[in-house]
């Protein structure tokens, strides 16, 4: 019984994939060169970050493999001092830049992704509740959002992280830094989601399919999550791409200010920061190369988000 069933569902998935690949969405995507290139870059960067332990030549966390004698070696294309072991040179501690960047990007992306996941869960739930239930609940959450938006994310993060660091000491902080960053960036940005979701819930809840669900006798929770939520996914998807980019930037900024990832477990931001003091002594690559990767990552994510916004909004149809 089980086997033919799984074969059937396998065939179903295949036809689904086929029809997806044949859809207008994919067709328009393939015609947009900027979108294709952006997706390519994002995929390559994300894959290499995820697979960093497998593909990077060194393990930057393994202190034994680091030799201080190898510090500040320029990239290989510098004919005089380049060392073929270190493709992109080394940092002041003698770590291989390429490996450090791959690992750093891994951390940056992780923080970006989980912070956005947290924002999303908070924001979507609050947005659905405010939009659907309205009244006092709506008034409360939206005023809260207004207040939160009047502080900048960085300001909130700097204050929280600085207090935490002062209260619990730098050592404990460096152990928990990644969770703290996810938490702070995640909580600071929920109003973006909540407002977007609330706006589309307000538009959706007056449609007749919601009335139909109420006439059938469904509970408000089921109507919110099963009927309204799927119809707000397109705007959520669009802001998610932009929010991932924003979260990575926030993390980089905090790390640059010394409130982010510690030096022994660097993210892209802390890498840029750690190389900053050497930039005038000629070791430009320690700052510039991670910056280049950061800009490349953010730019492609944002371009992809822009394309997605246009593609999911039929009113912006271009011929």
């Amino acid at each position: 019984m089980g086997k033919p069933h799984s074969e059937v569902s396998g065939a179903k998935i295949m036809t689904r994939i086929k029809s997806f690949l044949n859809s207008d969405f994919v067709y328009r995507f393939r015609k947009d060169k900027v979108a294709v290139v952006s997706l390519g870059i994002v995929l390559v960067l994300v894959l290499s970050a995820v697979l960093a332990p497998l593909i990077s030549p060194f393990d930057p966390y393994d202190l034994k493999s680091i030799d201080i004698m190898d510090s500040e070696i320029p990239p290989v294309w510098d004919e005089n001092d380049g060392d073929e072991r270190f493709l992109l040179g080394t940092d002041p501690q003698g770590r291989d830049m390429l490996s450090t960047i791959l690992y750093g990007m891994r951390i940056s992306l992780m923080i970006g992704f989980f912070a956005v996941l947290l924002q999303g869960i908070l924001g979507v739930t609050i947005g659905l509740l405010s939009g659907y239930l309205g009244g006092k609940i709506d008034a409360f959450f939206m005023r809260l959002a207004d207040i939160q938006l009047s502080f900048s994310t960085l300001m909130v993060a700097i204050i929280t992280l600085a207090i935490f660091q002062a209260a619990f000491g730098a050592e404990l902080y460096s152990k928990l830094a990644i969770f703290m960053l996810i938490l702070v960036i995640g909580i600071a940005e929920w109003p973006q989601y909540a407002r977007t979701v609330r706006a589309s819930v307000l538009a959706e809840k007056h449609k007749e399919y919601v009335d139909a669900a109420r006439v059938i006798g469904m509970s408000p929770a089921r109507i919110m999550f099963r009927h309204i939520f799927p119809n707000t996914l397109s705007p959520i998807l669009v802001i998610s791409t932009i929010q991932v980019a924003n979260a990575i930037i926030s993390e980089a900024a905090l790390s640059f200010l010394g409130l982010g990832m510690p030096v022994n477990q660097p993210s892209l931001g802390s890498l840029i920061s750690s190389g900053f003091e050497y930039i005038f002594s000629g070791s430009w690559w320690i700052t510039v190369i991670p910056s280049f990767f950061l800009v490349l990552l953010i730019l492609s994510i944002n371009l992809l988000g822009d394309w997605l916004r246009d593609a999911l909004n039929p009113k912006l149809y271009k011929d």
Partner: protein
Amino acid sequence: MTGSSDTPLVNILNVEKTFGDGGGFLSTAQPIVKALNNVSLSIEKGDSFCLVGESGCGKSTLARTVIGLNPPSKGEIHYQGTRIDSLSAKERQPFKRKMQMIFQNPYASLNPRMTVAQILEEPLKIHEKGMSKGAIKQKVEEVMVSVGNDPAWGPRYPHEFSGGQRQRISIARALMLDPEFVVADEPISALDVSIQAQVLNVMMDAQEKRNLTYLFITHDLSIVEHFGSKVAVMYLGTVCELADVKDLFDAPRHPYTQALLSAIPKMDGSGVNHIKMSGEVPTAMDLPSGCVFHPRCPYANERCRRDIPTLADNGNTKTACFAVEEGRV
């Protein structure tokens, strides 16, 4: 709670509905709209009860109030003798499966992210918790066939269908729970002429086979004449004439009904010769004093401007009009 044979299926007693309020904590004030004023109707089992009127007359609001989408501000709604408007959501649940609704816009009334099968299975999953998967599937197929749909449509999404097909899916959803009473809010006005006939036929078939009672809301009097058994004509939130369909079309009494009937475009080449009414429909935000129809009524006098008429028997029809009572029409 079946009620005796002379209890009407649905009884609407002195229902009023106002929207908007003076504003409260952290919210802005909205203008008060009186959508329904003291409406009383009773719908007998087997009726095709039609509500007609122009936009803003409160016919859709009344339908939504009866089905429970917006509670009445005043008055009572009884179903087979039980008062239902004051029930909690849980207590109301058994009535929800007996009362269903068909909506106006087939493009908005089906959730675009659910397949046809999911849409149709959902009512059963909520009200028939113990039903097996196979039984649900069978029931969906049976109802689909009965409204003239292909059961193979199940895995497809609503956007793949035309307006008429969607409206038939919407009817199928309303029939999934074998209801006794169906509210249809302008179910065919968004459809093309050739499709309107299909959908009306499906609704008439369903009534015959399932012994349904309809509350049918429309602005189109030619459909009322064809489809309805009883009709209530509404104007600005009040019922101005209530009658059997045949009697109303034979001899309309209320001046507004007469104007409405004369405005139906006729195909016999007689041209346009409708009763001219002065003025425009006032909004429900500032209702006229006295009879709500008096600013447009050719028979209005001082009494009409001052007092509010109530529905009273006048031969075969019930009218709310002083001019009819006094024999001035």
